[in-house]
């Protein structure tokens, strides 16, 4: 069914036909997502069956029991929680510092002219280099692990927030200044709603990136966490173990994405549909 939508752009106002697929994009379709994931598992099972090498390419019939065993034996939980805590700390640090840098550079053209190239350099420093340097400079400890992950993510958050600042509506800022809105009111009612798409984009892309870097950090220099467990599996050439550990954390991250971030993003953008 076609539904008429209304958009306002500058002085112009026009009636547009919003296509059904655009409407559907805004709502999660749980049955389709589940069917899609089941299809992925079937493709995996089919590939494993074709390769016919359970040690090199274990199928779901081997990996899922391995995962279940790790779950019920209690071996998985300490590593899962250690990785989650590192992800949480690094994510919070990266979002806070990255947003502050991005907002400052977006607000000041001069600052962006001087420090924008630094961001470009930081964006192109390989994650592995940052991790190794943090371990060498700070030591093989928790702070180095969290700092390495946060430093990797900060430039991306800063760039996204800077672009959001540059694209914001200057008329709204003028209106807020003219009516002498307070700092908190300006942040809450003028700035954050305009930056919400960039904040949510940075959070969602950031979380996906951060947990992968956390695994590398744990692989290289920690004695617990999913990355450490994968390191052990790697040494034992236990591919089923590698996949089981990875699956466990993918499941947790999917739960965070679907249960927290996606609803938050929909809420932040809900006014656009009215």
């Amino acid at each position, binding site marked *: 069914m076609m539904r008429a939508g*209304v*958009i*306002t752009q*500058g*002085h*112009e*106002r026009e009636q547009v036909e919003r296509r059904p697929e655009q409407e559907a994009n805004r709502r999660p379709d749980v049955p389709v997502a589940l069917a899609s994931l089941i299809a992925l598992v079937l493709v995996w099972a089919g590939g494993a069956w074709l390769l016919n090498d359970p040690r090199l390419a274990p199928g779901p019939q081997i990996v899922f029991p391995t995962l279940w065993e790790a779950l019920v034996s209690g071996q998985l939980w300490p590593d899962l929680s250690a990785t989650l805590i590192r992800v949480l700390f690094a994510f919070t640090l990266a979002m806070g510092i990255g947003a502050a840098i991005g907002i400052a550079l977006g607000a000041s053209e001069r600052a962006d002219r001087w420090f924008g190239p630094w961001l470009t350099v930081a964006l192109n420093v390989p994650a592995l280099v940052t991790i190794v340097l943090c371990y060498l400079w700070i030591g093989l400890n928790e702070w180095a692990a969290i700092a390495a992950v946060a430093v990797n993510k900060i430039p991306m958050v800063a760039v996204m927030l800077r672009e959001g600042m540059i694209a914001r*509506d200057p*008329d*709204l800022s*003028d*209106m*807020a*200044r*003219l*009516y002498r*809105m307070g700092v908190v*009111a300006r942040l809450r*009612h*003028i700035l954050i*709603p305009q930056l919400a798409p960039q904040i949510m984009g940075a959070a969602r892309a950031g979380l996906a990136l951060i947990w992968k870097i956390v695994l590398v950090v744990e692989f290289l220099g920690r004695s617990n966490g999913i990355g450490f467990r994968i390191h052990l599996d790697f040494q034992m050439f236990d591919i089923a173990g590698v996949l089981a550990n990875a699956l466990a954390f993918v499941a947790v991250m999917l739960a965070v994405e679907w249960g927290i971030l996606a609803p938050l993003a929909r809420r932040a953008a809900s*006014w*656009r549909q*009215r």
Partner: protein
Amino acid sequence: MIRLDLSEKGYGGVPVLGPMQLRVGRGEVLGLSGASGAGKTTLLRILAGLDSRFAGTLEIDGRSAMVFQNPTLMPWRRVIDNVTLPTSATEEQARAMLARVGLESVADHWPGQISVGQARRVGLARAFVTKPDVLLMDEPFASLDGARVGDLLELTAALIAETNAAVVIASHAAGELDALATRFARVDGRPARLFQEERVRAGS
């Protein structure tokens, strides 16, 4: 009361406004005419205190409000919030002002659900609810058709009369200025100067 003594305003070293003096007292409505790009908006931004990078002095007595060229509404806030949040007006005051501009039925709508004409009325309500001492209006009826402009002119004239504010209204439409202004001036030249016009509104 507005007192501006401006010697120069430029962008990137290029002067856009030349020496000018401007005085507007309470109850006066100065109509600023001039071609598009002449410098009317630049002058209004200076008067609003939104641009302080100019050579000269500006004195404003009391509280300022502005009706912007675009409605400048927060699309993520309902119409009523667009009046209360920037101005600190109570909800009761805001609803009364929205009723005054004929928008009581859309007070709880979202800006995306109202027409451009209605959005302009929200801008008027937001400005007038503050009971301003100085009111600045930048092309407040741009992009509206004739019938809508007629209605809004009548409403605006009534609201201005109630506030007794010092008002500066910029428009390139002579008819709009004729309907509202008590004095007239033209922004012209490069850098732009202010030319006071002798004509006064019929009946004033």
